[in-house]
């Protein structure tokens, strides 16, 4: 058996790859469900029902997808330019913390809602950017691998958040629980559905995905960042300013992850705790890969991930299968996607 490079992978094949990968992941996870003693079809049926079957499930799925779209985008734009931003989780938390800190400024409570929200979002995005510019500066100046630095900064960020919400930013009214002072009401994102947690952040996330897609496909910046990622030497021969391009990419990527954190605070919780994110930053990496780094694909991949997590909760209550099966399935889908991507590039020969 050997692999032969395909010269022209067809569009159909490229679109089929994520679908095949998800199906393969579901088959493997189905085996695990069977081993755990339940019917896999029944389990998947319950997952779908849990995720879409009720007003609450549906709204929860979309609420869950919102930060995932943004962290997925953050990873996708960076990976396109071969900037390996593994620090989405840290940028998410610092973005969230920045919003909470900004909300503590007394003047914010007096602003009109639109302005308050906009400024809060900006604060979150800028904080996320700064978080990624550090690792990038180290890479550009000293050649330090940003995989390591951005990954390790995640732990620094979470511990910093923990320090702040137990100290300077601790909410005195939270009965001693470590959480930040809530943002003022005028900075909260409006709800999209009555009596659910679904908020306008979803629109921002989808809008961001479309905007990123447009930027990548149609602008000079998009072309340059892709060139810089694919072949830095040829890109600089063609006059692409590598450093400046990477800085812009880092701002976009870190900004999106920071925005995700900001939106989660303004839309869902209102304050920051250290369990604000069940790994949104890390999931974003999987989602970006599953979407094959396509910004519009990120929406679908984030939705898949959200369905699994929300649905698995109710499925696990009904069948007493651990809800970790959702984590397993999503993780499996990353592995199968890597295989599927390989198979779009190569064909197997005897």
């Amino acid at each position: 058996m050997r692999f032969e490079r395909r010269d022209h992978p067809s569009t159909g094949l490229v679109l089929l790859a994520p679908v095949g990968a998800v199906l393969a992941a579901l088959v493997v996870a189905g085996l695990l469900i069977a081993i755990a003693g339940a019917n896999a079809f029944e389990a998947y049926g319950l997952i779908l029902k849990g995720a879409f079957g009720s007003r609450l499930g549906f709204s929860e799925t979309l609420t869950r997808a919102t930060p995932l779209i943004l962290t997925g985008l953050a990873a996708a734009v960076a990976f396109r330019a071969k900037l390996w931003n593994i620090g989405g989780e840290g940028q998410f938390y610092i973005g969230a913390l920045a919003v909470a800190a900004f909300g503590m400024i007394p003047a914010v409570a007096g602003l009109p809602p639109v302005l308050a929200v906009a400024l809060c979002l900006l604060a979150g995005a800028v904080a996320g950017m700064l978080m990624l510019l550090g690792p990038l500066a180290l890479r550009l100046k000293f050649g330090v691998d940003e995989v390591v630095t951005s990954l390790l900064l995640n732990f620094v960020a979470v511990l910093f958040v923990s320090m702040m919400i137990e100290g300077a930013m601790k909410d005195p009214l939270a009965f001693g629980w470590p959480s930040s002072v809530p943002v003022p009401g005028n900075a909260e994102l409006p709800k999209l559905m009555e009596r659910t947690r679904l908020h306008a952040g979803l629109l921002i996330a989808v809008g961001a995905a479309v905007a990123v897609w447009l930027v990548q496909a149609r602008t000079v910046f998009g072309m340059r960042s892709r060139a810089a990622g694919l072949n830095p030497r040829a890109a600089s021969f063609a006059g692409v300013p590598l450093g400046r391009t990477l800085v812009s990419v880092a701002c976009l990527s870190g900004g999106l992850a920071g925005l995700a954190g900001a939106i989660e605070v303004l839309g869902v919780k209102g304050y920051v705790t250290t369990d604000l994110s069940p790994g949104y930053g890390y999931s974003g990496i999987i989602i970006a890969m599953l979407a094959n780094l396509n910004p519009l694909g990120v929406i679908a991949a984030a939705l898949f991930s959200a369905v699994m997590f929300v649905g698995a909760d109710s499925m696990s209550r009904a069948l007493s299968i651990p809800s970790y099966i959702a984590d397993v399935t999503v993780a499996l889908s990353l592995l199968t996607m890597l295989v599927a991507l390989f198979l779009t590039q190569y064909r197997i020969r005897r």
Partner: protein
Amino acid sequence: MRVLELQSITKRFGAVTANEDVSLHLDKGEIIALLGENGAGKTTLMSILFGHYTADAGTVRVEGAELPPGKPRAAIRAGVGMVHQHFALAPNLTVLENVMTGTESLWKLRSDRAGARRKLADLSAKFGLKVDPDARVSELSVGECQRVEILKALYNDARILILDEPTAVLTAQEAEGLFATLREMAAKGLSLIFISHKLHEVMSASDRVVVLRGGRVVAERRTPETSKEELAELMVGRAVQRPERVPGRPGAVLLEGVDLTLGGKGGASLKGVNFRLHAGETLGIIGVSGNGQTTLAGLVSGLYPPDGGALLLRGHRPARHDVPHAIAAGIGRIPEDRNAEGAIGDMATWENVVLERIWDPEFSSRGIVRRGAAKQATQEIIRDHDVRGASVDGRIRLLSGGNMQKLILGRVLRAGPEILVAAQPSRGLDEGAIAGVHERLLEARGKGAGVLLISEDLDEVMALSDRVQAIVGGKLSPAIPVEAADARLLGLMMAGDWSVAKEIEGADAV
């Protein structure tokens, strides 16, 4: 005695026939050259022989015994060794370790380094392939790496050695050394096949030539009974004439280097480079690779500003020294390495065409790419320059070297550059493509552009240049008119002996 026989080999890739009914044989102690243009099926044929590919039909016999298809191990065991064009060496291991790799059973507890060292030393001495067994491969020159590859094959007791374009990466001197080694190996009873598209090396190094064209053997000649001209015609299928340079009338100075110095960027440093390029002339810079050509080309192309001295554009120091300003000032650039520098393989053809001019209002406005205009320009280049196999939206990776170069020339010439920097413009191209590149360069000169031709190919520099300077150790020799140059004088200049050149330049100035 027949040591190798290929019979009626046919190999298809989808609709493309790479080899059709190819038969050839090799006798003991013989060197045959497999001659053909890029894409003629030479490498495919040798890959079948070595077991990398399985033929659709036909057989391979080594010393009478048929080789099982698709089994490189069997080929190695039968005594076939292959030296690939792109070396398969581990850079972090020593020469000895590289040579030993794969020769010992994984289950053996100890590796017999002492024995291996002895065997390697013997081979080294026997064939005059000098190389330090303890040197790391990453520290070796390209020529030395090739020696290691050959030694690796010999270490596996190869009696038949196949070399895929062995001189593609070597300097002229290294190539001569290689061919002397090959001769010696043949005299000691080895049988060799080398793949090439360079006529002069085929003529000088082989006993017999097999010419492939379009996947078929079109001719077979004893080398003493043929000529370069005949082989060229057989290889291309028609008579190929490189274009002739007609004397021109150089105009004003367009580009002038004054004591340029630049340390170590992407190659040897420049240590005080002076030249003058006039409109309507070609200034040839000849030299053995690694003497600063890459750095000079990069500097003039706008990649890096000089550390010292000045690069004057029409007598003025440019306000900024970077790529966009160089292009905007009318400098067209043909990069030395068209795949690594000239193109981004996984981007579309049209993107590759416009990337270096993307700031031009023709191709973008307010940060938005004007895709229509970009694609149309690409379409025109593909049509006007006869770029085969290219589609506007297709990835550029699949273009052959010759077509890639046509596309690069196309994008550069479209802007009507006043200055053209061509670094090794025909490296790795076949005869037909070289003639095409030369024609374009002469055309640009005819239209009044100044062409700075940086090349290691003596024939090319002699054929295209009006004046020639040699680059040695980061310095340029005095310029001599090409009429006064011959191979011997240029050889002297490339070796650093500039006394004659100085006299000629002095006489010329008066």
